[in-house]
């Protein structure tokens, strides 16, 4: 029963709580990811798996060229290696002396997500699972969230792609657990929320907690080098929790005081204090 005043007081307590704990509410789970950039070969398997799992529309060359594509998981490729002390010889070699650096970039599910407060209709918000959720059918397409996303991982349906992306009989492949987005709606990586939901339902029916590794995101499941790890940070035993601990990275802070600064774990744009939940492990190279 939602009595207005009762909720106001609850609101106040949450308010103080939010201030003490840097905006952390009482989460049931805190799903997070670890991506080992040294294992990532940039082969695109994760990206394609994401297209298959999440009903992503392909937009074709013209729209891709207009940068209106919607690849929730994009593999970026860079050739420079900042913060790696170079052997002088290869510093300015006129041919490439080493491989490229690949970066799988998807929604980082920030805990202090810049996109959330700015949505006029609260179509994007934080779930009790610690996920940054996007409610397609609530979205009115003001696109403020995408403007405010430092990672540029929110994608907007500039057109209706249904006829071109899934000509019959292709629509039979669409995943019924995910809504098909139509024009004017913002969309982004959900950490495969349909899989999370399915697992939590099963767990509830069997009256148990979700096991670590029970939920696999599509990208994680297909990654040929197993560079991606996904799990619940609140679960002390989970591999993800272990990894975060091992690399001495903590949520809710934007400067990590690692006793060993050479530990590879880091979060992109940590200095923005958006508190991302994807931990990247630095790429390694034999110099």
């Amino acid at each position, binding site marked *: 029963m939602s009595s*207005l005043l009762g909720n106001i007081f609850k609101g106040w307590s949450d308010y103080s709580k939010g201030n003490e704990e840097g905006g952390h509410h009482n989460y049931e789970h805190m799903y997070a990811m670890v991506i080992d950039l040294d294992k990532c070969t940039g082969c695109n398997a994760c990206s394609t798996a994401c297209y298959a799992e999440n009903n992503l529309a392909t937009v074709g060359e013209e729209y891709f060229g207009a940068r209106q594509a919607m690849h929730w998981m994009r593999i970026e490729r860079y050739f420079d290696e900042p913060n790696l002390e170079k052997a002088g010889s290869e510093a300015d070699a006129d041919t490439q002396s080493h491989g490229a650096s690949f970066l799988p970039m998807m929604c980082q599910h920030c805990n202090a997500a810049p996109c959330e407060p700015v949505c006029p209709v609260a179509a994007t918000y934080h*779930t009790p*699972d610690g996920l940054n959720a996007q409610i397609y*059918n609530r979205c009115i397409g003001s696109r403020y969230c995408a403007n405010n996303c430092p990672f540029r991982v929110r994608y907007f349906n500039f057109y209706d792609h249904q006829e071109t992306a899934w000509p019959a009989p292709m629509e039979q492949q669409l995943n019924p657990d995910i*809504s098909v987005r139509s024009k004017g709606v913002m969309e982004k990586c*959900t950490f495969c*929320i349909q899989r999370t*939901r399915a697992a939590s*339902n099963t767990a509830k029916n069997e009256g148990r907690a979700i096991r670590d590794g029970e939920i696999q995101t599509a990208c994680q499941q297909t990654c040929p080098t197993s560079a991606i790890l996904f799990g619940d940070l609140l679960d002390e035993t989970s591999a993800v929790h272990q990894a975060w601990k091992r690399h001495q990275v903590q949520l809710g802070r934007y400067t990590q005081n690692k006793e060993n600064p050479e530990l590879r774990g880091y979060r992109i744009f940590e200095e923005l204090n958006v508190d991302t939940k994807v931990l990247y492990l630095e790429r390694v190279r034999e110099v």
Partner: protein
Amino acid sequence: MSIERNKRKPFPWVKTAVAAVVVGALIVLGAQVFERQLHPESAGIAPAARVPGAEFPTDTFKGKDVPQPINYSHKLHAGDLGINCLYCHTYARRSKVAGIPPTAKCMGCHTVVGTDKPEIEKLTQMWQSNQSPAWNKVNDVPDFVHFSHERHLQKFLFDNPEMDIKNAPDVCAMCHGDMNQVGVAKKMKPLTMGFCIRCHENNQGPSDCTRCHK
């Protein structure tokens, strides 16, 4: 002259102010309460609490008659014959969809029962020609709503100590109305988001959007 001016009736400032604030408060609270329809006759407890430990949504909806390939009567089967909902809609306990019973299940009885009735003959003939009837969906929520029969049955029926499987019709009635009162299936509850939310609030269901919208 000044005397006369004193005779002027002063404007009732305090009263006006109080009235204003009261009106404001009323608008806020009243709207909260009424718009969310938390007042009893809309979403309170049904006359007889049919599902113990749960508040029973009493909204009603006057669904239109949806023609079906076979005039299957819920009243006859579920009502008069008292067949449990879950006997035919057996998927409901294991899947998000309740599903239409496979024709085989119908034929389980109707190879012997009432084989002379025209509707049954229709059915039998379909069965022999290996085609399944094309039913028209009656309770249809938008495609961006992912409702799970399994979870709701689990909560209200199987995890509910005071409920036995034979009470299944009561649980189903929460969202489908008393199907054992109607003939061919009709939509009997609004099944709007408001309907869902109210029930979720009254029965402490999750209020997280992604539970239904993915």
